[in-house]
Each structure stands twice: as C-alpha cells, then as structure tokens.
C-alpha cells in the first residue's frame, strides 16, 4: 500500500537481531498493528476475524477429539458415545466441535452476503473473492466428511446420497459415474473403508483451509479492505490503524458471536443436528426422510427441484460455481449496494430466496414444496445471470461521496481535515 509505511521499531536487542534475520515481528506489526483500516467499517467486517477464530477452534477441538475417536464401522458410533459420556470433558469438546461447525457456516454465510452487498468482489479484489469461494468449497467438503464420522443413520445415508451424485455421470460417459463412486467408496457400497478415508481427509483439509486463508489475507492486505461506502482509502484521514481501532471492534463483535456459540454448545448442543444420527448406521434401512445439516439445505433444495438426476446435480454444483464468476457478472461501476437503489432490493430478495430454499430443503420433495423450490431456484440463478449484468447497466446509482472521510464527517469537514492529501 502506497499510503502505508511501517512504524515498526524493534526495541529489545533480540528483536533487532531477529529483524535482520527473520523479520516476522515487522511483518506482524505492519500487517496487523498499524495496517491502515477504513475508518467506517461496520460490525459486518468483524466476521473475517470471527471466521479465523472458528477455524482455529475447530482445529484445536478436532485434534483432541481425534485422540479418542475410532474410525471404524464397528467402533465409530460407540466411540462418539464414549466421548460424550466417559472422556473427561468429552461432552464439552464434542459439543464445541459439532456446534462450532454450524457457527463457522453461519459466520461464513454472513461474510459472503456482506461481500455481495458491498461489492467486495469488484476489481481489484477478484482474486481475493475467488480464494474465498475456494475456502468455502473446501469447508463444505470438510464439514460433509466430518458429519459422516459419528456413523449414525444420517451420517451413513448422507454419505450414500452425496457420493451417489457422481453416479449421474453415467449418463454422460457410460460407466464413468460408477467407476468414480466405487473409487470414492473403496467398495461396492458405502462401508467402513469409506469412513476411514473420510476421516483421513477430514483431518487434513482444515490445514488446506488454513493455507488458503493465508492467501486470502495476503490478497486482502495487498489491495486493502473494502468499506461500506465501497470507496478505497484515498487519504490519511480515511484510515485508522488496525490496532486498537479495528481489533477492539473485532473483539467486541466476536464476544457477541461467541455468546451465541456458547448458548448452543451448553444449552442446545443437538438442536442443529438430527435425532436419527443417534441410531447406529444400518445399510439395510434408509431413514424415511433424509436431510442434510442446515447449512446444506439450500443446495439440497436446488438438487431436488430439478426433475432430472444429471441436471439436478449440475444445478447444485453450479449454484456454488457461479460465485466464481461474480466479479465479471456484475457490470456496475459502483461497488456498494448502499448507492445502488435497484440492486439493493434484488439483493434482499436473493437473501430471502436462500432462506426459503433452506426451508424447502428440509421439507419432503412433494406437492407445493417442489413448485416453490423451482421458483426460488430460478431466481437464485437469475440473480447472478440476469440481475447482476443488467442492474449495472440499467440502474442509476446514487451520488457517491468524494471519500470515506466525507461520507463519515460530511463534505466541509473532509476539506478541513488537516492531513488531506
């Protein structure tokens, strides 16, 4: 950043010695202490920090749970019960890990909607956004494999249904789908062999996410944060140092979010799960109504809304894949929806659509539920493929403030700001 010169002064002799050999202190100071942060960030900008916290929390609770868990078809279910009943603090660690996954997704969804509303994917943040989408995809794979580990009925049948998605490729190239599915399973059906490999991948993928988060932060700190106005930092008065301004706001936002986390973990640890997962996996009986975890319900609704197996699967994967193209689908020159009177309403309709799809995904695929799922699926894609390109061309955006300072203090004050450049 052109505006940003580090004020780092190593104080101790050791810090000076280190600074000439591995300047990690300088890196941390430059990037996380005096890094220029837009002065107008609202609480939606605290979710990046919250997500980092949850990634670390999931890794820490996961590592200790792995010390007690048995990844075999015979022992997995019992070992989870043992963790909950016998292992010291096992009840707590297991609840934190299971509820933590839900909270991680909740925070990620807020973070993604924040990005969509304020246009955080627009140039020059395209790569930052794409890395974010990749993190989201790996997160989903990790969560899916983690959900298989208790080896209850929902675990088993979720694995069966989701891995079978790939069998739809049989209608493209004969035998391709079956080959892939049997390769994923390591057999002719889902079995303990499948559980074992999912456990291995569930352990390693969070570290892949951590690596991607590093790239995400790198891309973020190169171009700087977006802000509610969608304007970049143009002068010194637009920015405040990250510490203590953004860090204290992050700490407060995180504390509030952690209250929700604690409430679920201590009072409703099973509320976000499904009762059928406390029945051991049985390959001969499908539960009458298979539902995924709440955070996958919208995609499940899209899958079932399409009456063809192959196209249902394509629609479901496209619903996430389309996010990769958002930086180029949106033709508007204005970033923030705050100044986009038409887009703003389409955005809120999109949020409603995602919630509605979530509700429909939890319902049986029959009657009016299917019809509504089709309507909302159509709008889900229309938002990206029609609204985003056209709203930018047709709508007349409101006048943008000259700078972040002007947006916060008003025009006169901005001119009087002593360090304006």
């Amino acid at each position, binding site marked *: 950043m052109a505006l940003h010169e580090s004020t780092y002064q190593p104080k101790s002799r050791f810090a000076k010695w280190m600074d000439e050999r591995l300047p990690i202190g300088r890196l941390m100071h430059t990037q996380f202490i005096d890094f220029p942060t837009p002065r107008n960030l609202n609480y939606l900008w605290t979710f990046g920090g919250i997500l980092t916290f949850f990634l670390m929390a999931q890794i820490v609770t996961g590592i200790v749970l792995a010390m007690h868990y048995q990844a075999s078809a015979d022992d997995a279910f019992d070992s989870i019960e043992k963790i909950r009943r016998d292992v010291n603090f096992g009840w707590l660690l297991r609840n934190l890990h299971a509820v933590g996954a839900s909270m991680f997704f909740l925070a990620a969804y807020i973070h993604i909607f924040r990005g969509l509303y304020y246009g955080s994917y627009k140039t020059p943040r395209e790569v930052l956004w794409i890395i974010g989408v990749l993190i989201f995809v790996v997160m989903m794979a990790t969560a899916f494999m983690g959900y298989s580990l208790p080896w209850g009925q929902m675990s088993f049948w979720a694995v*069966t*249904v989701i891995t*079978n998605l790939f069998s*739809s490729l049989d209608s493209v190239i004969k035998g391709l789908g079956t080959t892939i599915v049997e390769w994923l399973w390591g*057999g002719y*059906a889902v079995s303990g062999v499948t559980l074992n490999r999912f456990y291995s991948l569930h352990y390693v993928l969070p570290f892949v996410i951590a690596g991607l988060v590093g790239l995400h932060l790198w891309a973020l700190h190169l171009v700087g944060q977006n802000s509610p106005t969608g304007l970049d930092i143009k002068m010194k008065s637009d920015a405040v140092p990250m510490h203590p301004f953004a860090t204290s706001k992050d700490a407060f936002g995180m504390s509030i979010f952690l209250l929700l986390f604690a409430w679920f973990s201590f009072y409703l640890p099973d509320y976000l799960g499904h009762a059928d997962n406390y029945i051991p996996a049985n*390959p*001969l009986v499908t539960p009458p109504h298979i539902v995924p975890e709440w955070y996958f319900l919208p995609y499940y609704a899209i899958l079932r809304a399409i009456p063809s197996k*192959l196209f249902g699967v394509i629609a479901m994967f496209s619903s996430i894949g389309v996010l990769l193209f958002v930086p180029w689908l949106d033709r508007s020159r204005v970033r923030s929806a705050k100044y986009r009177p038409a887009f703003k309403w389409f955005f809120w309709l999109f949020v409603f659509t995602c919630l509605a799809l979530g509700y429909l995904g939890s319902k049986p*695929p029959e009657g009016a539920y299917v019809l509504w799922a089709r309507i909302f699926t159509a709008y889900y894609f229309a938002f990206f493929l029609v609204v985003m390109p056209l709203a930018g061309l047709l709508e007349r955006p409101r006048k943008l403030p000259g700078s972040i300072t002007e947006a916060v203090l008003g025009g006169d004050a901005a001119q009087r700001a002593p360090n304006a450049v």
Partner: protein
Amino acid sequence: MAIDAQEPDRRDFLFLTAAAFAAVGGAASLWPFIAQMNPDAGAQALASIEVDIAPIKVGQAITVLWRGKPVFIRHRTEEEIARAKAVDVKELRDEYARNDALPETALATDLNRTITGHENWLIMVGICTHLGCIPKGQALGDKKGDYGGWFCPCHGSHYDTAGRIRKGPAPRNLEVPVYDFISDTKIKIG
C-alpha cells in the same frame, strides 16, 4: 531456450525431452496414490453368495446383503406378474432390462427381468438408481408406490412390480444382478 533467429539446438532438445520425461514419470508415480482408493482384493473376493429361498411364501420378500448391497428377493403373486406383463415396454421411462445376465440392449419386458421358468421370483439390487437409498416395499405394511412395487422415500421414485422405474427422479430400472437357480429352492447371486 533458443533466441528467436536461431534454429533450436541440441540443448533445447535435451531440455524438452528431460522435461517431458519428468512429467510422464511424475504422472505415473501418482497412479498408486489414486488407485489405492479402488475396491481392494478383499472387497472383490466377496463376490457371490447362496440364498435358500424355500421359506419365502407367495407375496413375501426378503433382503439379503451381497457385496455390501441389499438384494431384494420377492416371491411375486400371480396378480403382480400379470400386472408387470401387461405394461407396454415403449411406455416405460427406461426401456432397457438392466439385467446383468443379458445384453445391454435387452428390453425391459417382465421376461427379461426374471429367469424363464422362475418368473415368480424377482431378484434385484435394492438400491434406488437416483441417489442410492433403499426403496420401501419389502415389508408387508410398506408403502409400495403408485405401481404396486417399491417406493423410494428419499426423493419420491416409484417402481412397478418388475422393479422398473415409472415415476420420479430415478433414471434407470433397478439393477438385476447375475444369479442362477442351483435348485428350485436355492439361488446363487454373483
């Protein structure tokens, strides 16, 4: 690499072949890491089972496990057979028999879904061809769907009394595995 005006020389050739060799070698050494995930020798060995079907009365059905998959064995009633035979193959969602013992192009007539002389026995892999759930219809009290065969509760696929897909998202008829009658009351699957 060679400068524009020059002809590619022997060193360029060496670079190219070395790089190509390394790429092929790298790709080849990946293969064991991919292939290890395929069904292992133990899974492949559990290929066939024998089932005593004498206790199954007309109208009843049992489910056995073969290669980790449920196999439906249904002793069909005269009425169910007649109903399956009455269907015009051209009207079916999937007009192929999906019988592993027959050629792929065999049509999904009731005859092609069973073994001649044993039409009262319908033997199929009990896995919905949509996303792999186990359809309902084996137990007497089960919902059997609009066509009297099986009904998959996951995403609403209906199968008829010959296990053919009639309604819902499933693309194919239930698969008929290779099996044979060792005696009148004993079959070998696989």
